[in-house]
């Protein structure tokens, strides 16, 4: 098992070590983009609205039900 893990580690280690310059440029882009997307964008601009503002699923349900029903008032003179 340890031998297999060492082999996998060596595979990735050598892969990254021997990577050509264009590969390194792409990895720099991936890492920068990852930081931008997962740190800046996600936490500063995109908190999950329901998770951040409510503690439980029942509170979230309550809120969404309110949102979905609050604006529309039914005219009961309409026949169906």
């Amino acid at each position, binding site marked *: 098992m340890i031998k297999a893990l060492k082999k996998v580690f060596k595979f990735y280690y050598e892969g990254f070590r021997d990577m050509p310059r264009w590969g390194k440029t792409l990895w720099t882009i991936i890492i920068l983009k990852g930081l931008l*997307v997962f740190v800046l964008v*996600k936490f500063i*601009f995109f908190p999950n609205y*329901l998770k951040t503002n409510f503690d439980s699923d029942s509170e979230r*349900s309550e809120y*969404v*039900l309110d949102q979905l029903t609050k604006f529309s*008032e039914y*005219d009961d003179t309409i026949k169906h």
Partner: protein
Amino acid sequence: MMTLLNIDPSLVDWSRAQFALTAMYHWIFVPITLGILFIIAIMETRYVKTGDPEWKRITKFWMKLFGVNFAIGVATGIILEFEFGTNWSNYSWFVGDIFGAPLAIEGIMAFFLESTFIAIMFFGWNKVSKKMHLTATWLTALGANLSALWILVANGWMQYPVGMAFNPETARNEMLNFWDVFLSPVAVNKFLHTITSGYVVAAIFVIGVSSYFLLRKREVLLAKRSIIISGVFGLMAIFAVIFTGHGSAVQVAQKQPMKLAAMEGLYKGGESAELIGIGILNPKKDVNNQEKPFLFKIGFKGVLSYLINFDKNSFVAGVEDLVHGNPEFGILPAQERINRGKLAIHSLKEYKKALKHEDKTSANMHLKTFEKNFEHLGYGYLEKPEDIVPNVSLVFYSFHIMVIFGTFFVLVFAVFLWLSMTNKIDKLKWGKPLFILGIITIPMSFISSELGWVVAEVGRQPWVVQDLLTVSAGVTDISSASVQTTFWIFAFIFTALLIAEVSIMTRMIKTGPKTKEGGNK
């Protein structure tokens, strides 16, 4: 009297614009990934079968371009999921259980399949056997396509919500039958049509880049071999696109007839409906006036009816039938559906109230009314019947340009393939304009692919979940200014990524592949 959903319209528009921007930029990167991996796998298969190091060189060159596209495009889709949580919280909660399963599978599959096998693809040359490497390449291609499957299944459900039940106590849809969601005819057609359209874009990309080499009289063997592989692959893909596109249109006619009417500019439906080949819409026409729908058109009577219902005399609904109703063909007026939708919303509200007061009799009564009218729920958020009409001209022109470009691509694949197979392509007297055309076809394929999404998504407005939830009801009630800010941040980030992609790729293409390639072990 009823009051209307008074969400700030600029919030709805900015949220919509932000999602459209993110999705359209994301889709620039996806089609090449979906298709080029199969082209690379076929090239590598040729290498493994023949042992010819030129095939390895060709494979590695396209793999490099795939690497650029993958690196720049990866994680652009995750932003859509952030937007669901922040800007579309009502919608996310409403669809939660249906979206949760497919997206979780997508995440796990994309991570394990793609990341593992992509590593072998790039790091594994001369470290694993030829066959092992080839298997990794094929599995990466399959993995990428399978991960697209799940998000498209989720999108298919939004267009045709099946296999679920709405729980009025939690305001969430709960999955009743996974297979109904997974194998819904809309989802199946959408998946096949979308991935095969990606194959077409990738094949055109390979032909376009090969045209550049032929234009420069460089890498002629690479260009010819690449055109043959991508020409066959692209030709097969474009016929699959046509077939699945027809399948999608049949589904649209049944499940989203307004979208089909907009695609064809069909205002007044009827029997022996006409298929419009090309046309210019009359900008003065709307659903309530008697203006002619077209200033100019070339149409084929009965063909739309035949393509949709396999009967040239059958009825196809138009915009006016769907807005004003058509009792002869059992189409309810939109106003009636709006009334029923409002009754559904009212019952849901009263049901909740009754539950709070532990009034079981009243709760049961309102629940029954709600369930009876649930299929019209989304109409309750609309102001007037005309609100069910999407932007007809945007949908019509997008659809027709896509079809015209698609037809042109058949010709491009056929000509390039024939000239390469007969070994004439590098000896042509009129090669220069042909190769320039090959290069120009690259942006055309992207435009066509994006227009497909415009038809699918603009055509289903105002719905975020067909008939059940409107875009305005699905949006989070946050400040419009914050959505505007993030819109411009994304516009900047994605444009920077696109510039990076184009400049890195252009540089790599200009440099070309390695001069010589040794054989694999």
